[in-house]
């Protein structure tokens, strides 16, 4: 079987399109590359949607935590503490079984017992909590002069937030937020190892890498392939976030800009 044929058969296998059975014996390098690459679709899907939705909630949470009113501050603080203080792995398990029990009462929750929705919800809250902490830190380090200038111009309320506080907060938080994004993409590999089932073996990249390692008893091929894919993904994330960083800092002289320092963490 030629490699092109393999790509045609397994390229979209993680979405359930193509060959139904996974290869069982005589594994070729091409099969491993194709299937693990196919699994990356899920990692990218989870990463992008959780980041996009989490960004909005994170901004709200950061503003909430910085608020003077306890009604806004307390819930934000608790949400951040709960999602930052416990392992993501346990959160996945808990959420899965929570949705499973809720499904018994309200059938509509059946949707969330599948990975594409349920795990996305968990990742969304998780990244929102971590990003909120980053944004909160940035919010506290906004130079006093900036807000005073905004006051002097007569800006208040929404326009003060939109024109001065929010852009400055993002500018300060962006390097740390880039790390969070990289880290979130790495965390997506946990999904199919927690409670969420991979229906008909439609899993993510690590799921397939693990499948090959189990079948061949040889971890030295699939995991480096996986690592290679993730390094490429990380480079793409760094590049695109770097472009946004340049845009956020475009008014500053180029030598005072905050450089992106990439320091990926491990597990959350």
């Amino acid at each position: 079987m030629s490699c092109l044929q393999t790509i045609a058969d397994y390229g979209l296998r993680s979405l359930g399109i193509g060959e139904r059975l996974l290869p069982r014996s005589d594994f070729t390098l091409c099969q491993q590359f194709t299937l693990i690459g196919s699994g990356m679709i899920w990692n990218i899907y989870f990463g992008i949607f959780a980041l996009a939705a989490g960004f909005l909630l994170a901004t709200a949470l950061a503003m909430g935590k910085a608020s003077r009113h306890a009604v806004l501050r307390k819930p934000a603080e608790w949400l951040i503490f709960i999602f930052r203080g416990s392992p993501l792995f346990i959160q996945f398990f808990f959420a899965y079984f929570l949705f499973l029990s809720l499904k018994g009462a309200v059938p509509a929750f059946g949707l969330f017992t599948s990975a594409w929705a349920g795990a996305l919800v968990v990742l969304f809250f998780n990244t929102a909590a971590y990003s909120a902490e980053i944004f909160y830190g940035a919010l506290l380090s906004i130079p006093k002069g900036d807000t005073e200038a905004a006051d002097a111009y007569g800006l208040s309320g929404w326009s003060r937030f939109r024109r001065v506080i929010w852009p400055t907060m993002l500018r300060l938080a962006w390097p740390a937020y880039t790390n969070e994004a990289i880290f979130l993409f790495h965390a997506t590999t946990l999904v199919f190892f927690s409670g969420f089932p991979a229906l008909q073996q439609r899993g993510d990249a690590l799921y397939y890498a693990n499948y090959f390692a189990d079948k061949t008893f040889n971890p030295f091929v699939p995991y480096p392939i996986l690592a290679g894919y993730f390094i490429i993904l990380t480079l793409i994330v760094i590049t695109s976030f770097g472009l946004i960083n340049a845009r956020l800092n475009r008014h500053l002289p180029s030598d005072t800009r905050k450089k992106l320092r990439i320091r990926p963490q491990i597990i959350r």
Partner: protein
Amino acid sequence: MGIYWSVGTVLLLLAITAPLALLFGYGGASAARSQIAPLRWFGKTYMAVVRGVPDIAFFLFFVIALDQAIEYLRHKVLCPDWDMPVRQGSDFVVCQQAKMPLGNAAQWIHETYGFGLAVVTFSIVFGAFAANVMFGAMRAVPRGQLETAEAYGMSRRQVTRRILVPQMWVYALPGLSNLWMVLIKATPLLFLLGVEDIVYWARELGGTKTPNFTDYPHSDWRMWYFLALLIFYLLLTKASEAVLDRVMARLTRGQATAGGEAQRKAAV
């Protein structure tokens, strides 16, 4: 009973891994600062490789790799006249005496061996991160302090032991406490390494019918077990935060840092 033991397993893992990782970290950082080039390269490569590979993939990869490496070495030593290749297609074959642990060993030896592999894996991974933190901390100790010691005629070794090491902790602690939090949150991954930890028992005991426990039929309680785990981890995080704050206060005492200065002023 198993679940109580497994809580002990988690705490034991933390208790063994933390000092081991610190040791690995100190070794790695010292190697990276060494005057001997190969040692320096080794230290730097160690930090770069482990930190660069994506999270859980490393855990999954390393346990199998370590296991196979040990068996391969024992195979070479114990069965010198074995003429078949070790890697036969997709099988990994070593002679009976080289099996680790021995095929006829008791159950608890198997479990301890699995746990030991997990500890070593955790230590290697977290050691690399600790090495990075300590490497930074060693460089953060004011140069003047070391130069003064050299001016007093201390040898390089004496400078390291009397001046550098006692002073570096205050710079290393923020990074190390961060790492400790990450380590706590990484412990559920023991489950992926095949150790019967709390995640395993929560799944077993919570499920409606398990092969181990058929005496007490109950509905699906897994949600509650995982909720308990979530709370367990939150408490652990909270407690370590309190302890680390105190350690930081103790270490800051009398140091030439902003924190130390603030303490001095508060005392006056």
